[in-house]
């Protein structure tokens, strides 16, 4: 058979695809990561957070978060002791640029609360997704299959913590993945890595040696909106009752 130019052009990619499938091409190194060995969570020490916004910026850079949307953000609370008043809360641009100094009101306490997806064990967002595009992975993360998401936004409504948004470009839902691409390679999350005070720590609940167990045992720990019974896995130390 004459090897015409057209035949050659057709054959080359076909052969490449065949080689790739049969392993004839250079084989990818097998990942040693086993989902069944892990169950991810995060601990946050509110006493340690200084509201610098490093975590917000690191997350945005690491995950290409579109401008004006947030996979993580930091809130500043200013709360009176008694009589109880409406807490004064702000989070300018999600604390992307940190916070400007604000004179403290007399008789109030101030603190920062970093927020992110709680990767709930009983996620309302997973429950409501009409096609299962939002799902819980065996290693305890709530993730989104963007090739499958309809963009119906039911999950955004169902999340009690306001952690989801619609990616304006892809028109699918987006949220914190706990930097899955990093943690499955043995690294920590971008937010935890860039936190100058160690307020955020990635935790593996299935690892008996993980400091999370000591953290949970030795501190007064709470999750956000415990009455929602979502099985939230972001554990806060020193969480004030005014925080929602």
């Amino acid at each position, binding site marked *: 058979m004459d090897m015409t130019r057209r035949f050659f052009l057709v054959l080359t990619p076909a052969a490449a695809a065949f080689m790739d499938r049969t392993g004839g091409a250079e084989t990818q190194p097998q990942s040693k990561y086993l989902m069944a060995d892990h169950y991810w969570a995060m601990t946050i020490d509110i006493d340690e957070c200084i509201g610098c916004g490093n975590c917000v910026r690191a997350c945005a850079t690491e995950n290409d978060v579109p401008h004006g949307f947030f996979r993580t953000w930091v809130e500043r609370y200013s709360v009176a002791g008694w009589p109880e008043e*409406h807490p004064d809360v702000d989070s300018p641009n999600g604390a992307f640029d940190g916070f400007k100094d604000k004179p403290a009101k007399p008789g109030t306490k101030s603190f920062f609360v970093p927020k992110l997806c709680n990767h709930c064990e009983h996620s309302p967002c997973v429950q*409501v997704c009409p*096609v299962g595009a939002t799902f819980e992975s065996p290693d305890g993360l709530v993730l989104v299959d963007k090739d*499958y998401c309809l963009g*119906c*936004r*039911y999950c955004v409504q169902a999340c009690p*913590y306001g952690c989801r948004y619609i990616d304006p470009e892809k028109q699918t839902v987006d949220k914190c993945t706990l930097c899955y691409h990093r943690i499955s390679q043995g690294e920590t999350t971008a937010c935890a890595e860039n936190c100058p005070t160690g307020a955020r720590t990635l935790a593996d609940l299935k690892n008996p040696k993980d400091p999370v167990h000591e953290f949970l045992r030795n501190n007064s720990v709470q999750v956000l909106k415990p009455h929602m019974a979502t099985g939230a896995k972001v554990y806060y130390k020193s969480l004030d009752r005014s925080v929602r």
Partner: protein
Amino acid sequence: MDPILHGVQGFMYPDEVELQWSILIVLYPFITGLVAGAFILASLERVFNVAAVKPTYRLALLTALAFMLVAPLPLQMHLGHPERSFEMFTTPHRSSAMAMFGFVYLWYLMAVLVMEIWLDYRKDIVLLSRSSTGIMRWVYKAMTLGSDNISERSLKLDDKTGWIITVIGIPSAFLLHGYVGFIFGSVKANPWWSTPLMPIVFLFSAMVSGIALVMLMYMAGMKARKQPIDMRCLDTIAQYLFYTFVIDFSLEMLDLIHRIYEADESFKSLDFMVHSRLWTSQVIIQIVLGTLLPLALLGAAQVLRITAARRRVMYSVAGVMTLIGIFAMRWNVVIGGQLFSKSFLGYTTYKLEFATREGLLPAIVLMILPFFILWVLVRLLPPWTAAGAETARGH
């Protein structure tokens, strides 16, 4: 999203500032409500033998069909990826309330509405396929689906089957709209929506809106054809509207009283919202103009001696105000449920755009479309021959 540009007051989680569900999602429960209500009115005559409302039987069925055909369009237009919507049929997520929509919709449309209309009209379609000429002859011929036997025995079988379908259809209509209420009522993250009363409130408000619509369509149809309005029929429909409305309003008030009495953590936030951002749409339009006014008019028409001409005017005003009120109710549920922060510390504003995918213009088009479909259906399958309908069903 810039909080200042979006009219934020207080604190909202940063991803909450922009509303997720727009006016198109307001239309979805409004339109499905009209379908369910119109069908339930039609069923009254068929199953419960309410002879007085017979003149509206076929019109109610066609109205339900016209609106049913439009019902999924606002949802489809709202999706970020409408081309993937078939995935709800092929790989539905069984724990999702929304995943069942396609199945409930198809069941109701194909197994109930279309079947019932076809069986009821089969004799007329066969006769029209014989008397028409040109292209319409072929249209009617196709609509017979090859079933052109109109012997007495055959028509009796049609009638029996139609009755069974109506009996199945009533719980199906309840399912359709109760289910829409469940989509909202089961969102525990949102205290404005999360109540077990939501499906039943949606159901009764659906019946109210559907009955009001058929009442108005009947009056408009008679006026257009310059035919006298059957006042016994109109009074009976108005009576049903009144009773259903009383139940609907009682349920809504029960929900309100329950919220005020329980006063849970969301109460202050929601109370403030009702007294500020929702004051006009909820208190003025939905409750005063859209509920109390029509209830007063419908009640007065029953208690006082009023001339037929005046009653017709009262029913028209009551019908229009009812539809406006129920639309406002859907608005207050869907939009109102997104105006406050889930932190209960702030409020945002809904900015209705005009000529965008989810703007006012497509919403207006979607509301006109069912009336156009109904006009086509009425021309194709004239519902006015009440006498013809009786003979068709072998009464």
